[in-house]
Structure formats: C-alpha cells, structure tokens
C-alpha cells in the first residue's frame, strides 16, 4: 500500500515537473495583428495577444489577415506572415551556458527569422515538408507553399538539407528552391529586389494596423539620419582617398631628385672660343 502511494506521489511529481518544463516560456508574442491564434500543447486554440507567453510545442497560426512577431529568450525573432502555420517543436536555451537548440516546423506560409544566440551557434533549424534549414548567423526568409520551400538568405550561412542532398546558401540576397524532400535543391541566385520587398511587407503590419500596440509615434528614433553628426555605426558610403596618384608621383620624384639627377652641380659650360678682332 505504502509502495503504491509512493509510486503515485513519484508519478504525480514527475508529471508535474514534465508539465512545468513543457509549459516553460520560450518567448513572447511582441506584436499581433488579428486574427492570429495559438494552441499550447494539450490546450485549446485561442486568439493570440501581445505579451502572451509562447511555450514549448506551441502551435501558432495566422489567418489571411493576421501577422505576428515572436521574440524568443535567446533574442531570436520570427515575423510571421498571414496564412502561416508553425509549431515550436523544440526549444532549449540556457543563458548561462549559452547553449541549447531550437527547431521550428513551418507547415505553410511565410516567416522571417532574425537570429539570436542559438543561431549564432548553428543550433536553430526550421523544418518544412521539403527540407531542413539550418541557420548559422543568420537572418532568413522561408516561404512554404504548394510548390515547395523557398529560402532567401539575408545574412549568415544557411545549410539546407533534404533527401537529395545538402546545399549551402552563403551569400546575402541569394535564394534556393526545394520542391520536395527528394528533389535536388535549386540555386536561385540573387533574388530580385521587388520579391524581397514583397516578403518584407508581407511580414509586418499593413498601414492601418498597429500590431496590437496603439499610440506609437516614433519620437526619438534613430541616430543615423538625424542631426549634423551621424551616430555610432551608421553606414558610410565607401570613401576612396584621392591622393593615391600623388603619393606615387611624390615617391618617384623624390628618388629622381635624390639619385637620378646626380647631386653635383655640373661644371659650367666651356667659354666661347676667343675671337680675334682681326687687328
């Protein structure tokens, strides 16, 4: 009897611990445009709101009008476009050890992933029905549609793996298409600006939305475009010194004066021949 009680207590404790672990917050919904929904593991689907905790195994779904930004505890973010379905399959992160891993399934739709600590260690992966997309760096847009998976690398090294092989996307603004798990990964080269702009606009608010946080007027934003002196780390259009040719010329002229000319004053020209006045 005692032993069965002990067993029940132990089992209950284990289940509670497991539930607590699985319900541990891995991130926060930082912006939500309706309608977006989430389904925690074992829970019911409910509209997502700004500030909602995102937990391990949670499914996030956006309707044709919904967009969401999720912020994870390792500083990664996902900007999720309308009509998208994702599941946080795995997320383990220890900020003290700076280690862990992240695995997110993208069933359909579009997301932009901006990397945090886990992706800097190459431990962030997005899976689709066509490929596993390992992110080192890195910032990437992933689109899952009826034609397969399209990946656009914005920054970092993206390792794409499926049944037909492995492909590395190493250049910013380049993309790849994976039609299915068993088809070869296709190098799309540079993605056109208009397409990049389309997905950028697709993963944020429309002009009339406010991400669930009204009233932001944007005072005191930015440090690059304002004031007479640009702030820290503002990009500078490449500058090329204009004295390169002059430096070369100076070097050549200096050597010519020192050595080429000879240093000694040349002897005076011989005097003209003496003319006899004919006297």
């Amino acid at each position, binding site marked *: 009897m005692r032993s069965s009680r002990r067993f029940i207590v132990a089992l209950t404790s284990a289940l509670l611990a497991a539930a607590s672990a699985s319900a541990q917050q891995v991130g*926060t919904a*930082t*912006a939500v445009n309706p309608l977006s929904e989430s389904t925690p593991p074992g829970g019911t689907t409910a509209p997502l709101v*700004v*500030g909602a905790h995102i937990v391990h195994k949670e499914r996030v779904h956006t309707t044709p009008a919904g*967009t969401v930004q999720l912020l994870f505890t390792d*500083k990664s973010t996902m900007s999720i476009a309308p009509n998208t379905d994702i599941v946080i399959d795995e997320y383990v992160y220890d900020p003290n050890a*700076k280690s862990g891993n992240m695995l997110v399934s993208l069933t359909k739709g579009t997301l932009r992933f901006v990397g*945090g*600590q886990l992706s800097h260690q190459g431990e962030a992966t997005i899976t689709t029905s066509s490929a596993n997309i390992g992110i080192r*760096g890195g910032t990437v847009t992933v689109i899952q549609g009826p034609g397969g998976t399209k990946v656009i690398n*914005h*920054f*970092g*090294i993206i390792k794409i793996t499926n049944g037909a092989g492995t492909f*590395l996307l*190493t*250049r*910013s*603004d*380049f993309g790849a298409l994976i039609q299915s798990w068993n088809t070869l990964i296709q*190098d799309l*080269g*540079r*993605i056109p*600006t208009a397409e990049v*702009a389309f997905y*950028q*606009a697709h993963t*944020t608010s429309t*002009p009339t939305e406010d*991400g669930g946080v*009204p009233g*932001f*007027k*944007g005072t005191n934003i930015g440090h*690059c*475009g*304002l*004031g*007479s002196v*640009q*702030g*820290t780390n*503002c990009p*500078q259009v490449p*500058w*090329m010194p204009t004295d*390169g*040719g002059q430096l070369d010329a*100076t070097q050549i*002229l200096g050597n*010519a*004066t*020192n*050595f*080429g000319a*000879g240093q*000694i*004053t040349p002897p005076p020209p011989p005097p003209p021949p003496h003319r006899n006045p004919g006297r």
Partner: protein
Amino acid sequence: MKDGTWRASWNRIAGALAPALLLVVSCLPAKSQTTSELLNPLFQGILARPADFNNALQYGAQAATGDVESAISTYEQLLFYNPNLASVRFELGVLYYRLGSYEMARSYFDSALKMKDITPALRQRSEDLIADIDKRLQPDQFSGYVQSGFRYQTNAALGPAAGTVLASGKIFNNSFAARPDGNWFGAFGLNYVHDYEQQNGNTFEASAIGYDAQQFKLHQFDIGVMELRAGPRFGIISDTATGLSIKPYFVATGATLADAAYYGGLGGGLTAHVKLGDVSLDPYAEIVQQSFRNLTLYPLASGMTGALSTVGLQASGPVYASLGFQSRVTYAHADANFNPFGYNAYAGDVWLPWNFSPLNDGRTWTLTPTAGLSWWQYNAPDPTIDPFVTPNILEWRLGLGLEVPIWKLLYLGMLAQYRADVSNVSAFSMHDFSVTAGPTMRF
C-alpha cells in the same frame, strides 16, 4: 639565404605589420552576445512588457551599437506598432545595410521614401545609400573619382636647401634644390568589379589610378603616373560576416618625368581579403620589375632599375560614430643596378575620414586627417655624395583633407600636407608644405 638572414627578414616584416595588427585588434567591435547582455533588463523588459515601446526604443538604440540582429528584431517590432514612420524604416535599412543584406536594406530605404513624415535630411541619406546599394547589386560595378585643380608647394623639387654642401665639398646641384612652385594637376581613380553572381562570390576586379602635374616654372618636375591592377578574386568564405577571398593580380605602372618617358614597372602579386567584425583586412605581397630610363636631366636614373618586392597590410573600418579609418603598412626591398640605390623601406600611413553634415541637409562633408611615416635604409654609401656614409632617411608627413559637396556627384576637394625628410646625409634632408584645391567628382 642564410638562416639568420631569413630571421632578420621575418623580424623586419613582423615589425612592419605589428602596428597595423594592433590598430585592427583595438578597433574590433565586441560582437558576441554575453550572458549579461542576454540578462539585460531592457531585453527582459521587452519579453515581459512588449507593449512598453519606450523600453523597446531604448533597447533598440543600445543594441544598434553592437548587436545588429537584435536591433533589427526590435525595430521590426516597432514597425509592427506603426508601419508609417520613415525613421523606423530608415533605421532598419541601415541595420540590414550593415549586415550586407543590401536587397532588404534597399526595400526599407525605398519604403522610407514613400512615408509622409520623411525629412529632407532623411531623404538625402536614403537616396545616397540607395545609390550605393544599386551600384553594389550590379554585376558590373564602377566607382571612383576624377579630380583637377591647382597645387602650390614650398619645395617642388623635394630637394635639400639651395647651397647644400656635399661631403666631397662640392655644392648640391641647384636645379634640384628646394624652390617653390605651383602646378596644375589632374587625377583619377577607377575601380571596376565584375560579379559573376555565384554563391562563392567570385569576381574579376580592376583598378586604375592616374596623376599628371604640369609645373608653372620648374618643368624638370612635370610628372605623370598611371598604374593599372587587375585580377580575379576567388571567394573562399562568401558570407558577408567573413568574406574571405584571395586575388592574384598583375600590376603595370608607367611614369613620365620632365615630359619624357622615365619609368616602367611590371609585376604581380597576391592579396587576400577578410572581414573581422566591421574591419576589413587586405594583406598583400607583390613583386615589380622596375625600369628607369636615363634622361638628360636625370642621367643616373637607370641605376635604380631592379626588382621591388613589397609585403603590406591594408585595413579599413569604423573607429567611432562616423569616423572611420584606412591604413596601410608596408615593408619593401628594392634591388638596384647600382647597389647604393637599393634599399629596404618601412612605411605606414593612416587616413581618418570623418563624415559630418554641418548644414543638417543630409549631405556629407568629409574631413580627413592623414599621417604617415617612412624609413629608408640604403644599401651602401653613394660615392658621388658621401663615400663614407650609408644614407638613411626618416620621413614623416601630416595632412588634412576636406571634401565639401557642391552638387550631386561634384565636390570641392582641398588638401594641405607637410612632409619632412631627415637624413644622416644632408643632401637627402628636405621639407615641403603643399596645398591642393580643385573640383572632385565621385561616382
């Protein structure tokens, strides 16, 4: 070559490169996220209270100084809250530009231009950066400058003071002694890159610089120089964070002096490029066969003919705010037909371009202090000057350049320089102050 000689050569090279490496290391930004950053109360505040956009603003500004991706996340969060703000879109463009994600940067700058609240300064900055991005996204990319103007020098000959007495007791040739003069000059620099649009980032690159100066009075110092470099660049790691590549290249140089063909150089080299944080490093090694031609005014010039071997390191990057740096350190060994003309030389130069916009119109002025130091150690005494002393020369130079935008690509360029050579042989000591001014077109 004996072991000791190798060691001596290595010590010389290491000595030349060490200052640049120190400069580079001191400028490297701390990129990696530390635990304390992850436990940053502002970041924790976003996780706990994302709607507190004042907290997010503070965190975004803080992150932008080092953790670019985290700053992107924060400004994209703010963009969700109000997608109609030009400044947020501009900041995102700036952050993606810093990552080398030029298509994303362009889409944000483009959209910033469409916002109703854009200021003239922000519009100008956006247009400048879009123009730069458009150049980078072309398979065939051209950049450079053309400059013309006038230069005045207190010592156009770069020679010693008139009447300098040589060790032999004879007087230095007065035609090459220090005298002031002015000149008209033209200069250009052109860079061409063909991007093969491949994942590995392979390109073909060519650059040319040219300079021609016609003196007003002292025509023995009329000089023209043209240099061409070209070669394929092979990407080894092509992501924008590292960008490791190598490039073999050839170099061809020609120069005229006193309006006659005087110098030709032909050679090749190998250079690498790598990014460490925001700092670009370009070490190189090259060898050029130099050929000097005797002229009536320069009857001994052919004695300088020989191979010139150079190893060097160029580095560039940000220092603080809109202050950047470009630097170059080199070690060179020159062989010469006439042994006393051969030398070993160490040189270091640094440019510190500082961009600012005093009229608050977004147009950039560039003030550039420059400094350089060179040391030449010649092989042997020159019997015609001083048969007992092997010359060495320490040169230092300081300069200050200013570029003022006038209209579109047109600038007014001004440069003041002071140069002084100090030598153990009086004939090699000199100083010169020069002022240069003229219109400059950058593209």
